[in-house]
């Protein structure tokens, strides 16, 4: 349903990919851990290798839970579907695009 307006109501998305240049937003959820109220949001280079993304962004965040153990991290998922990450592969090459939601268990 289009928005009813006195004129053609059409505006660009405030968070469209181009507003982030070579970067993008990625959301990361630690499944089954209510210590974190929600998934975290990160701005990361599209070309950032997955391993670097985890080390530079996910670990400092998840590590505020004293029970976090990087070695125990498993079952990565992208929008709920299984994801096979490879540390050296860029986020976008893994299919992790702008505003993607990925999750892990630990």
């Amino acid at each position: 349903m289009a928005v009813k307006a006195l004129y053609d109501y059409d505006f660009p998305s405030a968070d469209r990919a181009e507003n982030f240049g070579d970067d993008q937003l990625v959301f990361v959820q630690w499944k089954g851990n209510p210590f974190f109220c929600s998934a975290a949001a990160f701005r990361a280079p599209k070309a950032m290798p997955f391993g670097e993304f985890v080390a530079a962004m996910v670990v400092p965040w998840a590590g505020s839970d004293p029970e976090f153990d990087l070695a125990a991290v498993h079952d990565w998922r992208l929008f709920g579907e299984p994801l096979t990450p490879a540390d050296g592969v860029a986020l976008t090459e893994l299919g992790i695009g702008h505003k993607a939601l990925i999750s892990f268990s630990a």
Partner: protein
Amino acid sequence: MQYELRYQVLEPKRQSYQNVIDRFGDQPASRYLEATLDVEPRENFHYRPTWAQDRELYDARFSALRLTDPYSFTDPRQYYYTPYVTSRAAMHDEFGKSLGYLEDRNLLARLPEGWRAVLGSVIVPLRHLESGAQLVSVAGARFAHGTSIEQCCTYAAFDRIGNAQMLSRVGIAVGTGTDEVLVTAKREWLDAAHLQPLRRLIEEIMIVEDWAEGVLAVDHLDKLVYPLLYTALDEAALLSGAGSYSLIAQHFASWFTNQRRWLDALQTVWQADPENGAANTAHLDRIATTWRDRALEAVEPLAVVIDKQVPEAGAVAALEGLR
């Protein structure tokens, strides 16, 4: 014990809200300032209005008259809600007493014939004019930029409906407690020749897009209507045995004095604005050119009718003095 402490003065950590402190330093501020300054949102609006293209929810561009800092204007009356309603409660109370006095003695119904006609055909129909002015003022309440300005428009809008109701009550009193005079007055507002220029004018002002131009156009009209009908005519009434009219008129005259205070101050601030002063002055001149003569044309027929009904009123001459 905290008991003792209650008799000790605690040093406040700050005297006012930060936005007030930023303007005036850390000192106690009036309730008017705290309730007015910087209250209107400024930025980060989430969605665009469906009813106005190329505008934000709050936008200086709703008028051509602009201020670098909207809060360079503050209301000289320092009205926030409480002093406003308190002052108007007193005004309506006094008006009610005046009217009650006249009603108890049936004095309005017993005005000289000419004066009764003036009330019925000129004064009472103006309740519709007030109602139209309310619509114009309330656009300012929504679209003016800055709380200090819109707040004045808000109270003015409410005043207008109050004035319309006072005039209506006069009409009911002239009709000895019936709606007869109101019904006739409305018919005249719609059809009588002497009221049509005025009605046309207010209808055209009601559709002016720029809220400030609308408010000022009404003001050009007010500057004729109020001095003529509630000051000049008041004096004439006293001299020609219509003291009852004077009892009524005084309340409208004092309202107009009150209304002038913020509106004159605002125009001064518009003209003095460091960035927009010259453009504002040009707009104000254009607005005056557009609406002042039309106001005069609209009020003249009223003066003519008054003089016809009450030859000693001298309304045409009085209007001449107001141009």
